[in-house]
């Protein structure tokens, strides 16, 4: 560390004040009067630096004497008896003259564990919880009778804005109602003042992304677009949704499959066609299509320039979305039944809409070519102003596209089997994914591969894990770095190593299910352990794990709630919600919150499992939401 040979300059007067008067050649006041006390002498840094951590700087007079210029001290012989005396220098004056870099901490110091730094503050949480409880109690006393309750509003939630919103927006000013959904919402009874009795149907988030990505515009009929405009303005409540990693569930997968497998024939000619002629192919080579469920058309629609260069690179179309249904103040099983009935009714209502959906979807999926893109254009034109804005979607590398497209397509991907055209020819993926290339010994593109690729080529890669990876990729757009894989729900250290060929960085070793839930690593935990542990989270009153069939696997529910009913209700609720939600957002939601003043129901699902957490909090802490998603993903992978 610091220059051992360096010197620190200290004013002579400061040192003289610490010496016994007998050793001074003259009185101290005289030195101060004639200004000589201000003269500085240099003491070896080494002599002082080592003493600093002791909180004092001491040395014998003998050590000091050689550094004094003549005329300040008595002759050495005459002060011999004082030489062994220990002189204590004023710490402040010394430290203030030490160059700050010499007070640097040791470079090899091990920093505090990240898990400690990132952990929530227990006491602050406790205080906040109590404050929230107090507020809730106060609000309950002010509950307005239901007759006065305001109409339900359709509140879309924009994930992007939600992430930024620190304070959960309570009740946005005025949100126009969506025809069908609004109707459904209005049938709900009112909610307590603080917690907007809102049917926050899925939504919005995607709104922004949808505009860019485009699956939606063509599908949305006139009225819907109105609701969209409103949604755009609405701030997103709650942060819990920010942690929605597993997002793109059901529909995403099906859509992914659809383009690649169900319509393999059309893509082939399209795919080969573009190769020779760069400019026109751009439309047809809108490669991302298969991968992310027809984002292309929308992209083209949203921005005026789109029509020509359709090839919007990897658009993170599948933004995580969360549907929130606000319950009535009295909540509970009654609410659920009412909501269930309502949802069913809505299903019927939205039947017309959904009938359109398939056709739209098909057009989106199978019609990458130019002619179809033009269809939706007029629809977009009818979209209100706010929607014509460019979507806030982070587009990975738009500038790369033109050049990449102009390159010969087949070159990039040495895919062994008939991989969907997009994955083979997706030029935009090249620049992004070259980083991953060295990782996998099998050498395929992580940003374009399919579930099958992963399962076939990666040892010990289960279908569930592969799907989780693909879903996560769809959510984030594309992997930028290998480390991004560590954010995939359910990924383990071993899986990461298998995928990349190297172990994860030390500071980012993914937690196993055991670690996540605080079980010893070696313990073989059962599903009951999982639900029991979750049920022990603060404010959580019950947790149930069930199958997609609606059969309960394990778990407990609070008193007064019918476990069988809630388990059977969850899949139907998702089904009902997603039926219309998918139209609005282009994807299904896999998280649902039914908040109420009593027990709030937090529903999570993936392909084959449902996790229902009953909590006193209408909004679970973000980390709990995250853990719930990871648990679900990890359980699926384990089952697989």
């Amino acid at each position, binding site marked *: 560390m610091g220059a051992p040979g360096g010197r620190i300059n200290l004013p002579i007067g400061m040192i003289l004040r610490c010496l016994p008067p007998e050793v001074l050649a003259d009185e101290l006041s005289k030195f101060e009067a004639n200004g000589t006390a201000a003269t500085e002498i240099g003491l070896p840094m080494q002599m002082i630096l080592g003493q600093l951590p002791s909180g004092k700087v001491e040395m014998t007079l003998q050590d000091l004497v050689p550094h004094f210029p003549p005329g300040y001290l008595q002759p050495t012989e005459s002060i011999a008896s004082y030489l062994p005396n220990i002189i204590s220098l004023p710490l402040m004056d010394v430290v203030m003259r030490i160059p700050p870099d010499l007070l640097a901490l040791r470079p090899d110091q091990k920093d505090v564990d990240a898990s400690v730094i990132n952990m929530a503050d*227990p006491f602050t949480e*406790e205080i906040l919880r109590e404050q929230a409880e107090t507020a809730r109690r106060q609000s309950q006393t002010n509950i307005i009778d239901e007759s006065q309750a305001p109409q339900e509003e359709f509140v879309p939630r924009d994930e992007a804005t939600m992430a930024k919103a620190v304070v959960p927006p309570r009740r946005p000013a005025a949100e126009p109602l969506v025809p069908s959904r609004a109707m459904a919402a209005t049938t709900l009874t009112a909610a307590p003042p603080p917690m907007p009795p809102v049917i926050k149907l899925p939504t919005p988030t995607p709104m922004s992304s949808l505009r860019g990505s485009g699956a939606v515009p063509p599908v949305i009929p006139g009225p819907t677009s109105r609701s969209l405009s409103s949604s755009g303005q609405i701030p997103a409540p709650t942060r819990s949704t920010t942690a929605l990693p597993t997002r793109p569930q059901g529909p995403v997968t099906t859509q992914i499959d659809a383009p690649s497998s169900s319509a393999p024939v059309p893509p082939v000619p399209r795919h080969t066609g573009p190769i020779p002629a760069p400019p026109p192919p751009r439309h047809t080579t809108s490669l991302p299509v298969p991968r992310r469920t027809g984002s292309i058309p929308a992209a083209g629609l949203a921005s005026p320039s789109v029509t020509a260069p359709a090839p919007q690179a990897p658009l993170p179309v599948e933004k995580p979305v969360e549907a929130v249904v606000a319950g009535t103040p009295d909540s509970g099983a009654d609410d659920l039944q009412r909501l269930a009935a309502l949802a069913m009714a809505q299903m019927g209502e939205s039947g017309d809409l959904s009938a359109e959906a398939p056709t739209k979807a098909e057009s989106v999926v199978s019609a990458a070519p130019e002619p179809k893109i033009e269809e939706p254009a007029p629809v977009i034109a009818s979209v209100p102003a706010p929607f014509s804005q460019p979507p806030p979607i982070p587009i990975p590398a738009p500038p790369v596209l033109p050049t990449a497209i102009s390159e010969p397509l087949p070159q990039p991907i040495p895919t062994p089997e008939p991989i969907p055209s997009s994955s083979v020819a997706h030029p935009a993926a090249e620049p992004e994914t070259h980083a991953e290339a060295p990782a996998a010994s099998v050498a395929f593109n992580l940003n374009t591969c399919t579930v099958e690729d992963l399962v076939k080529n990666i040892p010990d890669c289960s279908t569930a894990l592969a799907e989780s990876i693909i879903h996560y990729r769809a959510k984030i757009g594309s992997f930028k770095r290998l480390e991004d894989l560590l954010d995939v729900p359910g990924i383990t250290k071993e899986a990461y190593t298998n995928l990349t060929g190297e172990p994860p960085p030390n500071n980012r070793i993914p937690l196993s299910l055991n670690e996540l839930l605080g079980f*010893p690593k070696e313990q073989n935990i059962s599903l009951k352990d999982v639900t029991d542990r979750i049920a022990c989270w603060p404010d959580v009153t019950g947790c149930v794990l069930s199958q997609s069939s609606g059969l309960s696997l394990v778990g407990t529910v609070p008193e007064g709630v019918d476990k069988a009913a809630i388990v059977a209700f969850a899949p139907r609720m998702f089904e009902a919600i997603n039926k219309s939600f998918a139209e609005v957002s282009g994807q299904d939601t896999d998280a649902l919150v039914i908040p109420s003043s009593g027990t709030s129901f937090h529903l999570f699902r993936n392909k084959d499992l449902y996790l229902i957490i009953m909590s006193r909090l209408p909004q679970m802490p973000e980390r709990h939401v995250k853990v719930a998603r990871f648990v679900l993903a990890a359980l699926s992978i384990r089952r697989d």
Partner: protein
Amino acid sequence: MAFINYSSREIQLKIVYYGAALCGKTTNLVTLHKQITHAQKGELVSLATDADRTLFFDFLSLNTKTLPGFTTRFQLYTVPGQAIYNTTRQLVLKGVDGIVFVVDSHWDKMADNVESFSNLQENLIENHLSLVQIPYVLQYNKRDIPNAAPINYLEFSFNNRANRALAFESVASTGSGVLETLNAAARLLLAKYSKTPNANVTGMSQPNLSVAVPPSEENPQVPAGNAAA
């Protein structure tokens, strides 16, 4: 060492505020007692002389529900800072889970701070413990005094060990930085105990018994504590 009571589903963790005389340890507890308004706090027990010098120790109990399934009761102790009460300090340190070392920012107290810090290490050794095992947090108190020692010097003096410790500036008399310090100490403990949980805890259907946490591999001296208890 942590005590786990299965019957009441309670974990007790002991945090000791250590530091030189008059550095503000008791003030920390008094302020915490005021700041934490929620119901889960006990009375502040202070055994002090007329001159407000801690005679034996101060004690404050605070509860959280951070660890799943259990109420975590943090028992906060202070030690008498004066040199002559070293035996008392050793006693209070028995079974400690975490330490908050309070540093007086006054230049004149620097040597006392350093001496207290080394005294802490000695007393831990007496208890078969060390700062390597026991999570600790540094609190640079009295930051409001004029000419307070600069943070870089305090860090250089007290936080230059192989493992960096969390350090906070505070003014205990006004409450600034006090809760942050306690939060950090609690986080360290929770992280420690959630990383190396007792295998028995996971069962959730444990018989009702109150037991001490068995010694972890890296904490072989816990048995000594047990024996002493």
